[in-house]
């Protein structure tokens, strides 16, 4: 006899109201990222700690742990996407009202800003509707956001060759591999399709079998978490400096655009790093 639950469509509609307020650190992208990734990691540890010693149904437990690791790995990568989105929004908030060019059109490419007019800030309105899972798109958007007025900009989150900043030059290949793993986890439930295998072979320069299920180890999950944390730390520092430099340049062109001390203080709080705007330094 089938299980019968009344009004499934209505119950599903109710899911959207099962919510809690955002954490306070959501206003500070790097802290929000740490919290999200630590929460994902702690879920893995909690289950492993309390079930990992069980001796009954060991094969089933191991299968569930692989599934859990795939989910946690996906959560870690999506926390990174969330970080990039929030970081870009902070930058847009500081730049948009101080530049006269059409950089926001270039960033959003018309992808649904109108539906986000209710967002708390212009930055969120521009950035929330976009995916931040492609290194080339991420590069292009940050380049435009942090560009001097009427210029194409030179800041790359994932620079290649001699692109700036130099401190981020070693990130591109691993970021692409991680985003491809995310694709496999999110869209194919961890199954490496022929198409995934081809891309992963090119990215890792090694053999990747197709039509295999990804079985990440505990260490695999941790290595991704470590790399993402290190990357977020570096990107955060570089973007803070680039934004402070741009605002300094804008202030040099028109001193009425901003009060350096106020802006430096706000940037230091939002990025949790020391910054200098138009000669005024601030610490978090």
């Amino acid at each position, binding site marked *: 006899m089938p299980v019968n639950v009344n009004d499934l469509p209505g119950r599903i509609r109710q899911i959207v109201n099962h919510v809690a307020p955002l954490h306070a650190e959501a206003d500070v992208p790097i802290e929000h990222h740490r919290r999200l990734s630590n929460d994902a990691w702690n879920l893995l540890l909690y289950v492993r*700690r309390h079930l990992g010693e069980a001796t009954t149904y060991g094969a089933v437990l191991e299968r569930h742990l692989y599934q859990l690791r795939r989910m946690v790995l996906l959560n870690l990568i999506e926390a990174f996407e969330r970080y990039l989105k929030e970081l870009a929004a902070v930058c847009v908030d500081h730049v948009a009202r101080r530049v006269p060019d059409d950089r926001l059109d270039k960033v959003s490419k018309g992808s649904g800003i109108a539906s986000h007019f209710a967002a708390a800030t212009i930055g969120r309105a521009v950035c929330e509707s976009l995916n931040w899972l492609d290194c080339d798109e991420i590069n292009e958007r940050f380049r435009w956001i942090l560009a001097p007025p009427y210029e194409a900009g030179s800041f790359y989150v994932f620079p290649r060759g001699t692109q700036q900043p130099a401190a981020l030059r070693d990130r591109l290949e691993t970021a692409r591999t991680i985003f491809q793993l995310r694709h496999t986890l999110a869209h194919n439930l961890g199954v490496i399709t022929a198409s995934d295998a081809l891309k992963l072979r090119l990215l890792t320069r090694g053999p990747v079998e197709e039509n295999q299920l990804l079985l990440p180890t*505990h*260490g695999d999950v941790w290595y991704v978490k470590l790399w993402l944390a290190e990357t977020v730390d570096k990107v955060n520092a570089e973007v803070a400096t680039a934004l402070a430099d741009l605002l300094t340049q804008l202030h040099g062109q028109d001193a009425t655009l901003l009060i350096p001390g106020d802006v430096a203080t706000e940037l230091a709080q939002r990025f949790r790093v020391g910054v200098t705007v138009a000669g005024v330094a601030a610490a978090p």
Partner: protein
Amino acid sequence: MSVTGREAKYETSPLELAAWLRASGADSLWTVDGDPDLTGVVDFPCTASDLADELERREGKALVLHGPDMKFGASVGRDEIAALVSSDPAGNRVLQLNWAGSSDVWLLIEDRDTLIEVEVSDNLQISQSVDVKLIKGGDRQAEPEGDG
């Protein structure tokens, strides 16, 4: 997670907690589960010494929650904290805490699994080969400029 009210609360300082953590093995790995502040500023798991560094920046009082059978007074130092540690089913050391004035209970948990797995799979000593560093906001040094 909230306080059940059944545990006894032993007051200690972040400094004493940090001292106990350092004594527990500088290269042991630890995680914090449930404290929104610490999980926002530290990437876990981290070494005992890195977490101790962060705790030493904290002010206020921490309350160690434990069964009511201990004979200690209301305040405990680093030596008594060791007696309030329990173990989870996997043998990791666990302290249940909350900050004075907060109802959020959080766990300070040893992460032996990660340490063991990395050592076994890579045959490496974590303190020598893996850069497990505390990432702190506000006091990091600028990266040296690269070669380009």
